[in-house]
């Protein structure tokens, strides 16, 4: 059996909006194996944000089972879910979401510090990661002094620094011009080439096309699961 980092079995997620039950995901079966680069594609309302929350250990399913890096999230309490998230997931958000009033290195150190590493270790690892991404001379710049592309690389460094099982990118090109956006996609491809598991959430078919596997969502269900270059 191959190494499954994500396993969704008959996953259902209902939300209560007012007194109305809305079904965001209506029964999803999905397996992602280690080292895959998967795009989860769909228009807004298709359930892709809910997929991100479930895979990202930010949320638990209403029914069915979600296993991330071998651990089932169903039974975990908030603290345990946070620990799993901290270990297994590296987030790359739309609009970078760098922390305010903090420098590049402080952003990258934060996940390590939350894992309980001491400041010295965290600083060493963060410096190494930023240097790898070509930001060795920008360590103490705060976000106002970084360009869009640089900010995105800081965000990626922050996602990678804990060596997570999955890099989860949520519309990472959404706020960028097409050239910078393309550079970010190249970065994700590089990560994939290095053997990392990358899950890309997007509504953009063109962006999705850069992934070797594409899972199309519509109305909370998987419409089709494509493999191979397009």
């Amino acid at each position, binding site marked *: 059996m191959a190494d499954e980092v994500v396993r969704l079995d008959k996953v259902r997620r209902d939300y209560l909006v007012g007194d109305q039950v809305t079904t965001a995901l209506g029964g999803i079966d999905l397996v992602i194996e280690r080292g895959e680069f998967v795009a989860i594609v769909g228009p807004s309302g298709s359930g892709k944000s809910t997929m991100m929350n479930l895979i990202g250990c*930010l949320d638990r399913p209403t029914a069915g089972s979600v296993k991330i890096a071998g651990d089932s999230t169903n039974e975990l309490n908030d603290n345990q879910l946070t620990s799993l998230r901290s270990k297994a*997931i590296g987030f790359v958000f739309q609009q970078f979401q760098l922390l305010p009033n903090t420098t590049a290195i402080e952003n990258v150190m934060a996940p390590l510090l939350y894992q309980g590493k001491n400041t010295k270790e965290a600083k060493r690892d963060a410096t190494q990661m930023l240097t790898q991404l070509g930001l060795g001379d920008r360590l103490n710049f705060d976000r106002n002094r970084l360009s869009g592309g640089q900010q995105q690389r800081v965000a990626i460094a922050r996602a990678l620094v804990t060596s997570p099982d999955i890099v989860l990118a949520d519309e990472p090109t959404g706020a960028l011009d097409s050239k910078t956006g393309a550079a970010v996609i190249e970065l994700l491809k590089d990560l994939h080439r290095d053997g990392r598991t990358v899950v890309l959430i997007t509504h953009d078919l063109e962006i999705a096309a850069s992934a070797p596997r594409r899972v199309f969502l519509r109305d909370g269900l998987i419409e089709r699961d494509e493999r191979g270059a397009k």
Partner: protein
Amino acid sequence: MKLLGTATLALNRIWATKIRSLLTMLGVVIGVAAIVALTSIVDGASQGINKSLATLGTNQLNITAMAADSLTEQDAQELAALENVSVMFVQAQNQGTIATGDKRVNARLVGVSAKYFEAVKPEIALGSYLSSSSFAATAKDVVFGADAANDLGLTKAMLGQTVKLNGQDFRLVGVLDDQAGFGTSGRVYVPIDSARKLFSQYPYVSSIVIQANTAEQVDTLQLQADVLLRERYGLGAETTARYTITNQASLIAAVGSITATLGLLLTGIAAISLIVGGIGIMNIMLVSVRERTREIGVRRAIGAKQSNILTQFLIEAIVLSLAGGVVGLILGEIAAFFLAVIGDWVFSIRLDTVGLALGFSLLVGVVFGVWPARTAAKLEPIDALRFE
């Protein structure tokens, strides 16, 4: 995340929003400064009162007769013979008239025994106290209190001249400078033997004053004096109508409790402003939690536990409050210093005031920081991330 790292986050945030942080602290600054300054005023005032009471003698017991024939000189002699009594004197007093030339006014005539001046040591303005020769049987000397002297318009030239007390001639030997004391105005002092001839019947006295060797002996002495007098007059434990015994130390204690109450009242008022300051901090922290909902979401996503978020916001509130407390303490002590200069009392930085000010501001930070911090910690990460 280690506590130190969390504290650094909180400090960064406070530094990044300097003006807002300063304004937020202001309530606590004012509250703490008020507490410190008011405490020092109360301290200064009670220092002053105690000083003037202490000049009356803290070792002193006054036994005052409730009726003209309640106490006698024999009582006084027996009281003087008690253990640990250093000085005893008696007084016999009555209303009377004093006159010079064609001017005549009412005054309180006080007959005192020889030890009076030695024990009380009133300030003298002119001339001298009643000397031992004044207490000789034939001498008719008088010392005027400041108010009595003013009432008659006495001048320095009149020292040694004759004044009339209840129509009898007396020689003026001195004028006291006793305006600062209380209860001594409009008085003239004569030897007790002279008083016997003027108004008072032997052997009765209006009051007996005894002094203990040390302040610690006063309470015991008071008990002994009471027992002695009860035995002499065959009084039951319940009856006290014949005399009252007052104790300077208990007077000082009474004043102390009044100033303590006053202090509590003023501190209470200042504490209210501290609470208002705390509410200000809570308000700003709640606004801050709302503004930073996204940040909280991102922090949760990259691995912050609820406890990390709680600690971050709680430390921020505590630092704001504590910093306000430190600034308030400094301002309060500066104010206290100038008040001490103006009010002419001794300025000192009291450790308990420092502790109280810092302790209270810490408490305010914790109490008013908990709710916003809990609100922040309880945010659902997915809601926080989606928050616009």
